[in-house]
């Protein structure tokens, strides 16, 4: 095993080009477990800790450019207003110690369906900025996950940042685990309201081979909200609409039975979380709308 310590982003890209099998390591929260437990013996470890810019974020007009290694703790503490869904998801990641090290880049690189950031990214809308010596490109989050623990990265590419749409409406994130802290998701759900486009986006974790959106549920809800003039009148969403949305979210799952839970429970739980997060976000939206109306 070789340990590569690039001092700059360019050096990192060059190293990855030279050694496409090199495994990037930043927070180490996935890679080191695999090494400690002898599940993996990469030929090269590519340390990204010395590349300071990966820990930076920029808040732009419409989006946040989040460096791949920005730790979850920083997201929770600094980006709650801009990225509320991701901040909530970050807060559910493992433990304080892990949140101090791990970042979204690692979640994306590992592309485990159980990664906590995915549902929030899917719901908010995001693009993954990846780069190689060949050049840079931005992969829409919807195209990023390609299979179980597989993503759209080429062998010589590294994740540099994620561009996440700034919240313009309420966002929520829920995760079911069988412990009240420090738990891997049995399943998870993210939901974001996008009032300007009058759309709702969702993200589901751990209930399909990859993180997925519940597109049929989104389409149904978008139509129902539009039809009822809900975005304007700020009425309470009817229980039947919420139920059908929840059912469609559950139907979007393609889960398995494993040690963490059964497929049928996952489907059920995603439905419950969909209904609750819709209620929370919509209540919040109504509250905001009411305040704005009054002002």
């Amino acid at each position: 095993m070789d340990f590569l310590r690039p001092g700059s982003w360019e050096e990192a890209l060059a190293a990855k080009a030279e050694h496409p099998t090199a495994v990037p390591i930043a927070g180490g929260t996935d890679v080191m477990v695999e090494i400690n437990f002898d599940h993996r013996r990469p030929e090269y470890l590519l340390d990204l800790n010395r590349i300071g810019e990966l820990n930076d974020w920029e808040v732009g007009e419409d989006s946040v450019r989040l460096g791949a290694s920005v730790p979850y703790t920083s997201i929770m503490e600094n980006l709650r207003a801009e990225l509320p869904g991701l901040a909530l998801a970050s807060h559910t990641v493992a433990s304080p110690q892990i949140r101090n090290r791990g970042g979204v880049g690692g979640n994306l690189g590992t592309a485990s369906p159980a990664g906590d950031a995915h549902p929030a990214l899917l719901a908010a809308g995001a693009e993954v900025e990846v780069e190689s010596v060949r050049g840079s490109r931005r992969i829409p989050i919807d195209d990023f996950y390609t299979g179980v623990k597989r993503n759209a990265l080429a062998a010589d590419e590294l994740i540099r940042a994620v561009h996440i749409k700034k919240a313009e409406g309420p966002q929520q994130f829920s995760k079911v685990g069988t412990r009240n802290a420090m738990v891997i998701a049995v399943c998870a759900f993210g939901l974001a309201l996008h009032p300007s486009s009058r759309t709702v986006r969702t993200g589901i974790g751990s209930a399909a081979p990859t993180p997925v959106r519940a597109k049929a549920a989104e389409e149904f809800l978008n139509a129902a909200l539009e039809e009822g003039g809900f975005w304007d009148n700020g009425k309470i969403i009817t229980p039947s609409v919420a139920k059908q949305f929840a059912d469609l979210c559950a139907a979007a799952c393609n889960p398995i039975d494993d040690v963490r839970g059964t497929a049928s429970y996952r489907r059920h739980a995603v439905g419950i979380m969909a209904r609750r997060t819709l209620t929370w976000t919509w209540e919040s939206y109504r509250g905001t709308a009411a305040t704005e109306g009054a002002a």
Partner: protein
Amino acid sequence: MAGNNAPLGTPTKVTQGSQTKGGIGESTLRPDGTLKVTGEFAYSSDMWHEDMLWGQILRSPVAHAEIVSIDTSEALAQAGVYAVMTYDDLPTDVRHYGLEFPDTPVLARGRVRHHGEPVAIVAADHPETARRAAAKIKVEYRELPVVTDESTATAPDAPLIHENRTDHYAAHVTHPNILHRQPIIRGDVEEARSRADFIVTGEYTFGMQDQAFLGPESGLAVPAEDGGVDLYIATQWLHSDLRQIAPVLGLPEEKVRMTLSGVGGAFGGREDLSMQIHACLLALRTGKPVKIVYNRFESFFGHVHRHPAKLFYEHGATKDGKLTHLKARIVLDGGAYASASPAVVGNAASLGAGPYVIDDVDIEALALYTNNPPCGAMRGFGAVQACFAYEAQMDKLADKVGMDRVEFRRLNAMEQGTIMPTGQPVDSPAPVAELLRRVKAMPLPPERQWESSEGADVRQLPGGLSNTTHGEGVVRGVGYAVGIKNVGFSEGFDDYSTARVRMEVVGGEPVATVHTAMAEVGQGGVTVHAQIARTELGVTQVTIQPADTQVGSAGSTSASRQTYVTGGAVKNACELVRERVLEIGRRKFGTYHPAWATAELLLEVGKVVTDGGEVLADLVDVLEDESVEVEEEWRHRPTEPFDRHTGQGFGHVQYSFAAHRAVVEVDTELGLVKVIELACAQDVGKALNPLSVVGQIQGGTTQGLGMAVMEEILVDPKTAKVRNPSFTDYLIPTILDTPTMPVDVLELADAHAPYGLRGVGEAPTLSSTPAVLAAIRNATGLELNRTPVRPEHLTGM
């Protein structure tokens, strides 16, 4: 020196409150506390030696297979590898070990019987070198069909886990895959059933729990010049290890010198050997010190677990709520090797009726041999599984009778004088009804504590930080349970301990030194030994020597027995030392004062005093440069085996009782549980160190909580392979899962025990689980006949 004769001529009255400080009954602090908070306390995994090698174990990837061949040549050829050993390399004909009888191979011979069984061992200069070498050992397995439960194990054509059994249980079982069977029969169940107005039956499932101590199995074996070996190890019982290790190495016991290093928790999981023999074999083979440290994955294969169980219970009661009878069948899965299974069977059977008066009882408990992971000792030891079942039954029966669940229990609660189903009278306080009364009388925690001015605090709701509910679907429930656990080793076992106590003057002050082989595993035995020495010898300074095999056996740190038995041994040795010190005093000073001959003399605050409080001499003057040392064995009163057919017999030396009230909040839609409070009342006879007692009760309670809602080793029933050997998927409670735990400690002395004390450690683990389950049932209305309860059980998914 002027002070020399002063006390002799002028007896002074000892002022009130001048008892020796830091004696029994005080919450003195741990003597190892400073080392433990500074990181200097040396646990078994912290051992280090110049030129040491690292040992690695190659384990079976399958549960049941014939080993066709093993080829170690490639592994041996690796640079940095010093030794590779298999069954064929073992030095003597003694190639098995075991707690009760030796059925466990040191290294597999021709066959593996469970997933993770050790097949070969490697020593190399770095752990990674050792791992890579182990991976290069070529083992050809031919898989065999697995037996995983009672029906597959006892089928007529079932593969036998152990052929040609010669152990002393073999003759009494109906199938060779039944390891041990113990009936308990008393009265006439058929007749009693006819008197019952209500009958309740239930079938209960108890999952496989892991001790999950945090300090992994580890140790350092250092070869000695005399051909022996020095072993630094974390264990619960040094001498039991020694008895099993030495014959395999072909060494006399005195050449295997064992020293207890820091133990990172035990809970039963260190009663059996793990890496002890392997490290010694490699050290003796290579002539170099060998360190072995399991990682968490390996730890799940490196020790036995709590027996999973199926329990079939039938209780009857009359209209006025009196229990009529109990018929029970308890099937424990012992896994591939015996470990402590026979004793676990004895406990499950003899305590299977719980702390209740039931005259007509027919209980059968048995343990199976299967290809599942071996099971053995864990805190509560057979009594835990039974408590889960009988407490569920009590709630059901109370409901049928139409009585309050606590009052129903109190009506049937045993007390001093009750005859156990084994025919043994309960001959010390058994305040079962009082414990229930107390735990019920505690104020209930306020409702909806999660509501705050800023909305719901998810940290206080089911799901916690995962943000699954802001109060939706959340229902509160309250449940009660009580249990009975035996203290000490039972069934005629010669349960003794040894203490060596020395008293001398050091630096102008009397100092006591206590040396035992007691394994300090965190419970605080070292604290208590110092307290006993202070109380008995009137000294302030007590030195606790490291536990090793240079002193006689202390027995195991298990069965809630160490404060009773080794505490008793220390007390006894101190008393003998005191007698000898007083003899010296009489010899030197007896002529100066008549009280030396006539009064009852005590040692208090460094002085010899009469029971009237008159000071006769300074200990410094009595001892001068003499030292008094005593090493003596001490045993509790004997017990006897249970009758093979009826289970009758004076099997237990003492019982321990605890009651719990659980308050839970359940998210009924998602099936997530938050335990809000777990209150406990326990009788401890005498709290030698109240702070430690409460710590034991809270710790035991929390392990019971884990068993109720999250902890389970999952074994694939088709392959008998462990599916979750990691802390990612075997979950134990975090600080956010653990509620406040108010504790009410009763001290009703047991006249048979030192200071009247009662073993503390295990009882709280029994009743905690069924109390939480009862509370969840109360919240959800579900029957819930298995533990741990998982979200899918609560949602019907």
